[in-house]
């Protein structure tokens, strides 16, 4: 009783809202074991990337229709492939009537980065059941990968939260594609809204929270420099994968050397 009075007395008027807000913030994004909170956390974590998904989905649907791909095919692409860059490049290749084999090979090269991402996130999924691991990996994207890596490095996030982010992201991606398809063929200029910069901005926002030590920063710089060099020498779609592999080899060497 005394304690409550003291707290009540020490808080200036009008700060009850702040207290409630603080209580909510303390509850949200914590590891409390209460399932509606897990779902809510899932939504909250997806919120920032939704902006990017909507922007990308809209422009993808729009471009697909503009380049003569049927609405059903465009929507199926978002539903089944669910990888933004591969889809956009796929459209361009379909338009120039590239051979099916070359389209599939390009898809493989562009998406090969998921191979490393999937093995990286896979080590956190040990306690998952077989089908859960499968379902989780199906909906792996660059954004959810980065978000979940941060979450996993802090504690063991509940499955419900992880699957909420995945499913919510996928649904939004498909819906915004449908809207983009609907707008397709009309005269809109998405670039004037800066939508094309949404993806690079998202990657910057996803990358920086992962940089925790000096070695991490070093890895980022090396990877960036290598990317420029390799691209300059004509690695084009292979750039990301080769830069990643070389950077990791250098990183391992530095890490070992650092310990001695």
């Amino acid at each position: 009783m005394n304690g409550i009075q003291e707290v009540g007395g020490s808080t200036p008027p009008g700060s009850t809202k702040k207290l409630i807000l603080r209580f909510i913030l303390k509850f949200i994004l914590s590891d409390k074991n209460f399932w509606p909170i897990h779902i809510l956390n899932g939504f909250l974590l997806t919120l920032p990337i939704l902006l990017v998904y909507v922007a990308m989905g809209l422009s993808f649907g729009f471009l697909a229709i503009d380049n003569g791909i049927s609405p059903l095919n465009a929507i199926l692409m978002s539903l089944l492939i669910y990888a933004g860059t591969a889809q956009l490049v796929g459209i361009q290749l379909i338009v120039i009537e590239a051979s099916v084999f070359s389209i599939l090979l390009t898809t493989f090269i562009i998406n090969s980065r998921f191979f490393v991402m999937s093995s990286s996130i896979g080590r956190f999924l040990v306690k998952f059941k077989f089908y859960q691991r499968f379902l989780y990996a199906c909906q792996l994207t660059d954004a959810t990968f980065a978000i979940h890596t941060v979450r996993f490095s802090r504690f063991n996030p509940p499955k419900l939260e992880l699957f909420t982010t995945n499913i919510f992201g996928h649904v939004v991606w498909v819906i915004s594609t449908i809207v983009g398809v609907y707008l397709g063929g009309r005269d809109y200029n998405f670039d004037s809204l800066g939508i094309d910069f949404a993806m690079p901005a998202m990657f910057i926002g996803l990358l920086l929270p992962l940089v925790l030590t000096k070695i991490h920063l070093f890895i980022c710089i090396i990877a960036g420099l290598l990317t420029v060099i390799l691209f300059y020498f004509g690695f084009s779609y292979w750039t990301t994968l080769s830069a990643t592999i070389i950077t990791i080899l250098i990183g391992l060497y530095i890490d070992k050397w650092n310990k001695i």
Partner: protein
Amino acid sequence: MEQNLILYTIFGMSLITLLIKVIPAMLVSNYKIPEYINKILEFVPLAVLSSMVVQFIIIEDGKINLSFTNEFLWASVPTLFVTIFFKSLFITIIVGLLSIIFIRYFGIF
């Protein structure tokens, strides 16, 4: 290309993407991982994301462009600072979009 052929191509693309995403996750989690693999996997997200960011902001129309005409490169400067300062993905994206709009409409360069 014919729509039917496009449909089959899409099926092929999704199968490839699915296999790439699923196979490593299924394999990795089945056995105990040695220390150096853990180290590699710790570096992976950093290297992949850095490489992608650099490609996005430095390459314009398939060429390396470090001049003032590359809007993405200069829009990423305030975006970077805001990320370091606020550490919020949402603010980063909003500021990123605002800076690119600002650069395009007011044509600073």
